[in-house]
């Protein structure tokens, strides 16, 4: 019994991490039609930046937010300098993000060298607590909570604010949004910053669980893709659902069928893409 | 046997019927014009005939054969050809290269991957003949991107004729042409032999009305008037649809 509870909680924790990672990806993909292949790299860079701040004694939560902010700035620069110049050429934009992923990954290797580094979590969430008959790391419970808070915050942003309405309009019908006067260019930059910030923040929060190491970006990017394809591009609700589903599939897959873990992970993505070929941008506000 | 028979053809997009229970017949060798105000569903109808769209209900009989669920290329193999409202040529290739592609479409040659295409002089000569028919032989070596809009329209028609079709669908062949270009295309269309049946969508009334033997008027996806020119022009519903629109 303990096994199932532990693994289910692990699944939720992983789901939480995946949500923070993929929400940004989904927003960017849904609004700008760009599959941001450097998203995993932003996640990794955020983790490294957070690590450096932690090593200097900065409080964990401040480090996480600061890392998110730093990556947001980087994302904004990338969007303005590179992606905006390629407006309208989706494939070129995707390729550009691929090149940027290479650049960031190598820069991380350069600055922080190749050894995997564990991040120590915040003191407030150290240790394990009894949960439904087993002991479970408090930090992972914390992650579930943080992800829920972020999900709520994003939901409020997208549903209840003006900028959220603009995002929804843009995801729905970009030409129409332009026609009614929504400042699409500025919106693109803002959303790209937001998405990148979430990736960076997610990297730090994931740090105590996943550590940070070269190759983390290539490990995380496909997971973000699976979540978003499963849950529907541009849909926050879909990202929540997809993250939880993938969290469970990955955790239990790893525990029960380790040889086929990756097959089980990517098979749903293939099935969705194959079964709904027109479904990549199947329309969804939230 | 008719060239084309549509029976109860229906197509909706999100609840809105773009084609609403259309039934009509095109006789062999006929020249049919389809008109109607913007949004009447003319291009949707063409797409249903050519196979670019699948109908929700109804049948499409091409020379007596049911083709409603066949792919566009399968319908082309059965003698259907069409031009598009927007130019869909290959801009970086020369005119003759464009026509060669059209000629190859119905030939088993198109699957050959073990010899070059450039060596097939016979194909290139045949392509030049087709260009001759539309009066563009002198531009054969010119790239499509470098010729005028009117000439591009004629290449579109040439591509369709190269397929030696039995039924030809022309989607606004005169759109955007100058008066002189229109006359050239008109002469071209009139010179097409009677073993090819033609259905045309057009907005340019003078040219089209002169060309057509029978006219079908569409409105909100339905056929509302059908008959020869005199009948359609005099019909009160025609006036209503055009003046009211």
């Amino acid at each position, binding site marked *: 019994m303990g096994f199932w509870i532990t693994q289910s909680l692990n699944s939720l924790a992983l789901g939480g991490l995946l949500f923070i990672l993929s929400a940004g990806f989904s927003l960017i993909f849904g609004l700008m039609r760009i*599959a941001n292949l450097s998203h995993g790299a932003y996640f990794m860079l955020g983790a490294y930046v957070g690590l450096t701040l932690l090593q200097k004694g900065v409080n964990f939560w401040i480090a996480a937010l600061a890392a998110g902010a730093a990556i947001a700035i980087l994302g904004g620069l990338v969007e303005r300098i590179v992606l905006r110049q*390629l407006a309208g*050429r*989706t*494939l*070129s934009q*995707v*390729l*550009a993000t*691929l*090149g*940027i*992923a*290479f*650049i960031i*990954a*190598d820069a991380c290797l*350069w600055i922080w060298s190749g050894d995997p580094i564990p991040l120590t979590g915040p003191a407030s969430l150290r240790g394990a607590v009894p949960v439904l008959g087993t002991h479970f790391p408090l930090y992972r419970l914390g992650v579930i909570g943080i992800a829920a808070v972020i999900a709520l915050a994003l939901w409020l942003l997208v549903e209840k604010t003006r900028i959220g309405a603009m995002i929804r309009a843009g995801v729905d019908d970009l030409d129409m949004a332009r026609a009614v006067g929504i400042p699409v260019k500025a919106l693109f930059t803002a959303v790209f910053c937001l998405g990148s910030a979430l990736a960076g923040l997610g990297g730090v929060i994931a740090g105590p669980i996943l550590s940070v190491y070269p190759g983390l970006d*290539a490990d995380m990017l*496909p997971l973000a*893709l699976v979540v978003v*394809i499963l849950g529907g591009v541009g849909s926050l609700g879909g990202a929540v659902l997809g993250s939880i589903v993938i969290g469970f599939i990955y955790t239990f897959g790893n525990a029960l069928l380790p*040889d*086929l*873990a*990756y*097959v089980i*992970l*990517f*098979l749903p*993505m*293939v099935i969705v*893409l*194959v079964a709904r*070929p027109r479904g*990549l941008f199947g329309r969804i506000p939230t | 046997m008719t060239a084309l028979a549509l029976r109860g053809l229906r197509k909706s997009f999100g609840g809105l019927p773009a084609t609403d229970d259309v039934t009509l017949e095109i006789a062999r060798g006929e020249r049919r014009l389809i008109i109607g105000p913007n949004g009447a569903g003319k291009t949707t109808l063409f797409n249903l005939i*050519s196979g*670019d769209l699948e109908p929700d209900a109804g049948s499409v009989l091409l020379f007596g054969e049911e083709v409603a669920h066949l*792919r*566009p*290329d399968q319908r*082309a*193999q059965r003698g259907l*050809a069409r031009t*598009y409202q927007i130019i*869909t040529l290959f801009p970086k290739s020369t005119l003759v290269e464009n026509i060669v*592609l059209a000629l*190859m*479409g*119905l030939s088993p040659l*198109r*699957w*050959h*991957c*073990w010899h*070059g*295409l*450039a060596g097939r002089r016979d194909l290139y000569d045949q392509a030049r003949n087709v260009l001759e028919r539309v009066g563009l032989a002198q531009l054969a070596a010119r790239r499509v991107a470098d010729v005028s809009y009117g000439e591009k329209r004629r290449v579109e028609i040439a*591509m369709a004729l190269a*397929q030696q079709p039995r039924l030809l669908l022309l989607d606004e062949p005169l759109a955007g042409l100058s008066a002189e270009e229109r006359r050239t295309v008109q002469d071209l269309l009139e010179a097409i032999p009677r073993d090819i049946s033609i259905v045309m969508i057009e907005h340019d009334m003078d040219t089209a009305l002169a060309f057509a033997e029978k006219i079908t008027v569409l409105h909100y996806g339905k056929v509302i008037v059908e008959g020869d020119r005199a009948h359609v022009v005099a019909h009160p519903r025609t006036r209503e649809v055009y003046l009211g629109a």
Partner: protein
Amino acid sequence: MRYASSIAALVALAALPFALGNEYYVNLASQVLIAAIFAMSLNLLVGYGGMTSLGHAAYLGVGAYATAWLTLRLGLGPLGAGAAALAITTLMAGFYGVLALRASGLGFLMITLALGQILWGLAYRWVGVTGGDNGLSGLARPAPLGIDITGARPFYFFALAVFAVAFALVALFVRSPFGASLQGARDQPRRMRALGYNVWMIRWITFVLAGFWGAVAGVLYVYYNNFISPHALSLTQSAEVLLMVIAGGAATLTGPVVGAALVVVMKNVVSAYVERWTLLLGVVFVLIVMFLPDGLVPGVQRLYSRWRTRP
């Protein structure tokens, strides 16, 4: 004559090992040839077919793993193992093609990525068969026609022979009626269908051929390294070969070769002088995507013809 430049290039390539002298550089040249075949295979899909794939490493990987496994575990001779590996990979490409072609554009990109990840995951985790992270090692190079290719120079000539045949066949393919149909389908699929072309079939056949040539590169790859590991199937590898094609010039014959040379040389030679060669590669790639989107080969050709026709 049209073939003069090709023959000259072939002669130059044949003379290369003698000019290079040092065994290290000859091996590097072999690596370039293998990467060039790999990039050419992807170019059939990306450049000529207009289908951008991020899962092409799968074909090199499966070709390599199959060859190694059949030789090491089943004891097949190199001819049998190589032929079987090519067959297996080509069949796999056929199956994958059916799945991937359910989508186009970004959807196609995603499916190929996912399919590639599935195979990478198998290579990584199915330790019993693939050796997991350690891979399969101990594969000896074959002796085609009795010639020992264990040495750097003989292997180079072996790779050159395969490359020359691959290049010639791909060139023939691209210039054939089928090649014209493929490029037509890339540019105006709707028009092609209206002309009677079965666009799906054209794309599927190309997908299978791309997989076949990828497998050829894989067989050479595993014989060059005497070893295969999951890294060869990774997303990074698929990204790298895509980079080679785009940077060199998609939809050209020599573009992928130039791109392959660029990446391999940067990886090995430049890295001795410039530590951050990947970073440099990334920057070069982004610059090419932004300013020379057709790639280096067409870009240079354009500059050259502009220079020649200067007033």
